[in-house]
């Protein structure tokens, strides 16, 4: 069964797989998670604001993003980002955007919808007395969010946010549809060049599996620790 397999191809392509592929994947995951968290928190604040219109707009955005498949959103932004860039910079023609920038914008906008739901739950889990006490102390809305509500919401939701980041880490593999060399894309390039699909895809699967397993084990431990503090 494994007789005519050549696992040496993995060893030969290790530097390319990890230095190029995995670093792209991890960079994309990290920056998207950060950007998604920032935008997601803003969207959550909009949804919970007392201005009904803001809440409606944010709600529509979240529902819209969550009902589309990520693959379609990746295609959308791939074609849309050059035009957005043209509009922002006032250039005369659609600007050229690199693969990394394009996928980064996609994942930030897409994940913001998911992170915002988590942050909304986190903010709603803070008892009403806290912002009330903050405003009694004379803190403005911005101050009470900045110093009282958001730090606690973030801490309570940390395990869920990290779990979502693991999902995001797996989802970044979908940039494959744009032929971008992330980790899976790099593995697939080597696989097709050398005709070693079985070896490379098994290896890619194993790497994703080990990283995700370790990460979710870490999240479970963190959750247990946080649970004791509360």
């Amino acid at each position, binding site marked *: *069964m494994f007789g005519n397999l050549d696992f040496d191809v993995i060893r030969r392509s290790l530097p390319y797989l990890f230095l190029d592929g995995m670093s792209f994947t991890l960079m994309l995951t990290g920056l998207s998670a950060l950007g998604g968290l920032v935008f997601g928190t803003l969207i959550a604040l909009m949804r919970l604001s007392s201005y009904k219109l803001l809440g409606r707009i944010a709600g529509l955005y979240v529902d*819209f993003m969550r*009902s*589309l*498949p*990520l*693959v*379609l959103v990746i*295609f*959308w932004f791939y*074609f*849309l980002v050059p*035009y957005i860039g*043209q*509009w922002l910079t006032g250039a005369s*023609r*659609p600007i050229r955007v690199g693969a990394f920038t394009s996928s980064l914008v996609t994942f930030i906008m897409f994940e913001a919808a998911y992170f915002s739901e988590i942050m909304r739950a986190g903010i709603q889990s803070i008892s009403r007395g806290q912002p009330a006490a903050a405003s009694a102390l004379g803190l403005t809305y911005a101050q009470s969010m900045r110093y009282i509500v958001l730090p606690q919401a973030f801490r309570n939701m940390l395990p869920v946010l990290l779990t979502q980041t693991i999902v995001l880490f*797996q*989802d970044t*593999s*979908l940039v*494959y*549809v744009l032929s971008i060399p992330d980790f*899976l894309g790099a593995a*697939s390039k080597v696989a097709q060049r050398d005709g070693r*699909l*079985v070896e490379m*895809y*098994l290896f*890619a*699967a194993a790497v*994703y*599996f080990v990283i*995700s*397993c370790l990460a*979710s084990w870490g999240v479970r431990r963190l959750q247990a620790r946080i649970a004791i503090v509360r």
Partner: protein
Amino acid sequence: MNYNWNWHIFFEPNPTGAGTYLDLLVSGLWLTIKTALLAWIIALIFGTIIGILRSLPSKAASWISFCYVEFFRNMPLLVQLFLWFFVLPELLPRTAGLWLKQLPNAPFWTAAIGVGLFMSARVAVQLAAGIASLPRGQKQAATALGLTTTQGYRYVLLPMAFRIIMPPLTSEFLNTVKNTSVAITIGLIELTGQARAMQEFSFQVFEAFTAATIMYLAINIIVVTGMRFLERSLAIPGYITGK
């Protein structure tokens, strides 16, 4: 924006020679629905089995279900589809592998089974949570009435648990619909694939993607509305959602 909008493109003949571009997209929509439904049936069957195993007191059963769930949850769906599509036929004995490779509609079956198994791990977790949320008395009452474990699950625990987890199952079904689009990578030309094909043939990128977007939104609205009615009629009296 110097982009030439042309909304009439949908009624122009497509290059395959059969019908208009709109027909192309609608055929993609049907393939998405067909794949998603088959995947959902698979997800429900395997998810139920694994979910029950997860809720049993036996150590071995919970270990099996733990491994199953971790296996399918810790790999990207795309990688799983590649494993089923490219790797599995090579690892099987020669004749079986050849038969698999020559299967007509291979992308369709691979997508339905791959997405189905991927989603089954999620269904299992939801079902186990649903069973765990039932008061302990339910299981004890079933035993006291003389029901065997199988009968207890069949007549008491599962009907209750499934009705409780209806809302999360709705969103898992919608995830199944969305996840079928990943099968574009193994050559399944479903809705997203057809939109992409239309973009390549006609260069009307944004019209094609807008149409696909509207179709996905329509699926969402129909499923959510339908499930809301179903949830209301199946709600358990006495629970918060019940009458």
